[in-house]
């Protein structure tokens, strides 16, 4: 542990070094240039600049928080110092880039990057601007840290929201523009509402936003509004009746909210159009798979990296059975579905058998291998007569209900919805059942579980089989949606996608799967630039989450307590209050002496 608090200057230098290094890394990787086209506040700064200033800002903030000094001036100065050092790194990068051609090695050290670094100015004024801005960021971070908690959290949240709104400009204006009703003959009240909406849409497009990003005035106004709202909202005492008791004491409110949510979900695709239905379909696909992997990894603690294998088996079974191309069978979707389900379950059992006795790490690699084997087999020329080989399988049947074929994104959305509802229900009931508890016992300590009489064979096999089943179902819908299946889609990255989303959402937590899927599947579709750096972000977020919040974004209560045992001992199940905020740093496991 620390014996003497380190001097504020050392802290500042350290923070500056790390922040600068991260900023340079982000620049060289190309994220800064990629996001550089998107203005957050038009004319002031772009998302790219946010990306290289953010590490400096955050690291300065962190460095400053560790200082024990009370003198505000020293805090401010050390903050500015770390900001300066951080931006010095970037300035150095820029200067080196002017002297030698960095692009031969670092492909993303492009002219656009340099322009962003110097805020569009020439060399000397650009560097000066960069350094000054860096210092300002550091100082701002220091200043914010001195402020009282309420004000600070208000400012931080307002800032984040402003950046978010600027970032999502396209999305917001598209959604608003969609409200505008086209057509001629409608009742008067609709006309009136329509004109209001038109006005709003116009106002948003022209006054609030600029061609890209927010207008400066609106950014300031938005910041003030949100900041103020947060600030005054935080002063109201939270009556105990509101936090958890909403569920118990006011059933009517709960039912109303619930049915409201259900109606929204049912109407979503009709309202949002085909493109959003497409995104929602993909989210649904990953939710289905996530629910399955959640059981294997979250409940039973078995790290399965080859999850895509079951997905492939479900999709290929559907393909082989329903496509007239291969000539074997010509079933309909509904006829082939139970067979695909059985095939997935068998595959799950087949995978589970050899790995019953393996340790966690080996299990991961073996399942990875299994996933790759299935992909290679599907791709191989050897099995081409049965599985289609490289060319995949086409003309897969789509589900029919009555006379209607479900082949548009909106119609498939409802199929997904039904599937998810059933699967989520099963998962939820399993969680609280004996089997679920057996899984969690196995997860915690296998030897003790065995000693308590839990049959680890059947329990583990059941976990694999259930996970495989859910994934297989997702695979069948995927095959039907695309009407074809190619082996190239069944790769390791799919497994990683699903793993990331359940971990980020919360291992073992069912709502967490939804949160994770929305975050990880919808985000790259909505922010195109982000799609390039998707896996880089996944990797970073996974590491960051494991370091700070391993229980995920929407954690399962039990998990959260397990992973933060120290907190549980000190504060029993209370929502995070100001005291806990203050001691948060001390409580996070960073010490190495326990190694």
């Amino acid at each position, binding site marked *: 542990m620390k014996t003497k608090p380190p001097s504020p200057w050392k802290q500042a230098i350290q923070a500056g070094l790390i922040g600068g290094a991260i900023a340079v*890394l982000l620049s*060289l*990787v*190309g*994220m800064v240039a990629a996001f550089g086209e998107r203005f957050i506040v038009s004319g002031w700064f772009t998302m790219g600049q946010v990306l290289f200033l953010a590490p400096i800002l955050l690291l300065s903030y962190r460095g400053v928080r560790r200082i024990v000094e009370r003198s505000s001036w020293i805090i401010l100065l050390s903050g500015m110092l770390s900001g300066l050092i951080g931006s010095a790194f970037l300035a150095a990068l820029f200067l080196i880039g002017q002297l030698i051609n960095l692009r031969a*090695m*670092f*492909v*993303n050290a492009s002219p656009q990057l340099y322009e962003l670094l110097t805020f569009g100015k020439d060399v000397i004024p650009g560097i000066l601007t960069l350094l000054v801005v860096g210092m300002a960021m550091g100082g701002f971070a220091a200043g914010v840290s001195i402020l009282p908690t309420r004000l600070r959290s208000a400012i931080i949240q307002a800032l984040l929201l402003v950046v978010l709104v600027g970032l999502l400009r396209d999305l917001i204006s598209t959604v608003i523009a969609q409200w505008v009703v086209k057509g001629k003959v409608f009742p008067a009240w609709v006309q009136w509402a329509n004109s209001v909406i038109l006005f709003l849409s116009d106002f948003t497009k022209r006054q609030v936003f600029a061609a890209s990003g927010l207008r400066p005035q609106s950014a300031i106004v938005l910041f003030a509004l949100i900041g103020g709202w947060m600030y005054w909202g935080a002063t109201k005492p939270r009556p105990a009746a509101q936090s958890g008791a909403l569920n118990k004491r006011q059933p009517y409110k709960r039912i109303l909210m619930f049915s409201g949510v259900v109606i929204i979900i049912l109407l979503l695709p009709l309202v949002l159009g085909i493109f959003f239905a497409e995104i929602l379909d993909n989210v649904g696909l990953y939710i289905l798979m996530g629910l399955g992997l959640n059981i294997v*990894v979250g409940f039973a*603690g078995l*790290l399965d990296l080859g999850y895509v294998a079951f997905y492939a088996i479900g999709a290929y079974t559907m393909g082989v059975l329903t496509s007239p191309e291969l000539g074997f069978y010509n079933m309909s979707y509904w006829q082939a579905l139970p067979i695909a389900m059985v095939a997935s379950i068998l595959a799950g059992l087949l995978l589970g*058998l*050899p*790995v*019953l*006795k*393996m340790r*966690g*790490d*080996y299990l*991961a*690699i*073996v399942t990875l*291998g299994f996933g*790759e*084997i299935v992909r*290679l*087999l599907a*791709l*191989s*020329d*050897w099995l081409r007569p049965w599985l289609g080989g490289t060319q995949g399988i086409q003309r897969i049947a789509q589900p029919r209900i009555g006379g209607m074929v479900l082949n548009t994104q909106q119609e498939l959305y409802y199929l997904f919805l039904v599937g998810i509802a059933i699967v989520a229900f099963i998962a939820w009931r399993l969680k609280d059942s004996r089997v679920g508890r057996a899984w969690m016992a196995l997860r915690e300590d*296998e*030897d003790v579980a065995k000693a308590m009489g839990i049959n680890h*064979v059947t329990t583990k*096999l059941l976990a694999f089989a259930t996970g495989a089943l859910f994934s297989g179902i997702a695979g069948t819908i995927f095959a039907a949606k695309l009407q074809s299946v190619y082996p190239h889609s069944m790769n390791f990255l799919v497994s*990683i996608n699903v*793993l*990331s989303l359940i*971990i980020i959402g919360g*291992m073992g937590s069912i709502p967490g799967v939804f949160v994770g899927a929305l975050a990880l599947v919808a985000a790259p579709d909505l922010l195109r630039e982000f799609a390039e*750096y998707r*896996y*880089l972000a*996944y*990797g*970073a977020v*996974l*590491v960051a989450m*494991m*370091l700070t919040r*391993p229980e995920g974004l929407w954690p399962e209560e039990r998990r959260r307590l*397990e*992973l933060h045992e120290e907190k549980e001992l000190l504060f029993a199940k209370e929502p995070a209050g100001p005291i806990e905020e203050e001691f948060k740093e001390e409580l996070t*496991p*960073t010490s*190495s002496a*326990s*190694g």
Partner: protein
Amino acid sequence: MLRTWRQRIELTDILVWGIGISIGVVVIVGTIATLKSGKYSTATWLDLGIKGLALGGVYALIAMGYTLVYGILRMINFAHSEVFMSGPFTAVFLANALARSGFLNKQPVVSLILLLALSMGVSMTIALLLERIAYRPLRAAPRLVPLITAIGASFFLQYTFRGLYGSGFQTYPIPTILQGNITFGQIRLFNTQIVAILGALAMMLILYGIVQWTKIGKAMRAVSEDKEVAALMGIDVDRIIAVTFALGGASAGAAGILYALLFPVVNFFMGFIPGIKAFTAAVLGGIGNVAGAFLGAIIIGLIESVGPLLFLDGLGVPTPSQLKDAIAFTILVFILIFRPTGILGERLAQAKA
């Protein structure tokens, strides 16, 4: 006695053994069929065998990283494949610069040493950063957490390097002195293969020497035996763990240059499959066991080179080399079914699940 046997073996054990035996049967039948058909000459098998040896040497160096880290931390460093990739992918720019200036061909030995130094340095740095940032804070966390961190780190590193150097690939220039081959009768050795095999042997001996005969090696073995007691004995556990990662990283960096000599095209994805194969090798030989890693790697290299033709060709499987990687994974499952502690056995205390 029969009764105790029946109590100890369950249905699943029988099924699992069944899977293992069927794999074995397939391999044996295929081998016999291929050799009987006489489609390939002895010279061909020798050629493939030598390729396998060279490849195995490279895998051995990568496997060192896995086995050393597992010995000390009881965890698979998933990101080690990216540690392997970072070295040669960075050094290729130096190599191209050297080739352009003509230095590469004038002073091949010096150039090679420079490249090795750069590659090992970069890989070491990445390994150390990994340990410091991602693994050290999580030493006490439940099993799953560092494993997931490792996976996340692996992806992060892969795509970071993709962002830094581009998604395309770079080619290594081969110095003229290393182009060409030597032939003894039926055996043909390419110069690059000779360098790879000798280089791997040399590195292995050095590493083995460090681990067995130096004070630091002794400290490493102590820490891997029991961390707390070692700390009580005055060993700086953090430093030793860092040294372990550094050694593993340096070894991987050297492996990278040797790999580049054999297959001169590098890109950001090059570490993934060799990483898995090296891990298989480490497990095959006995994880935590340095000599075991070497042995396992040689075997894996040979199987990979000779396997697709030997096992599958005789069975009439078309395009067997497409299934090359599948064979490697199947071998892994095979070992883990029948001898999970590896050929030379683990040098660890019994680990908990």
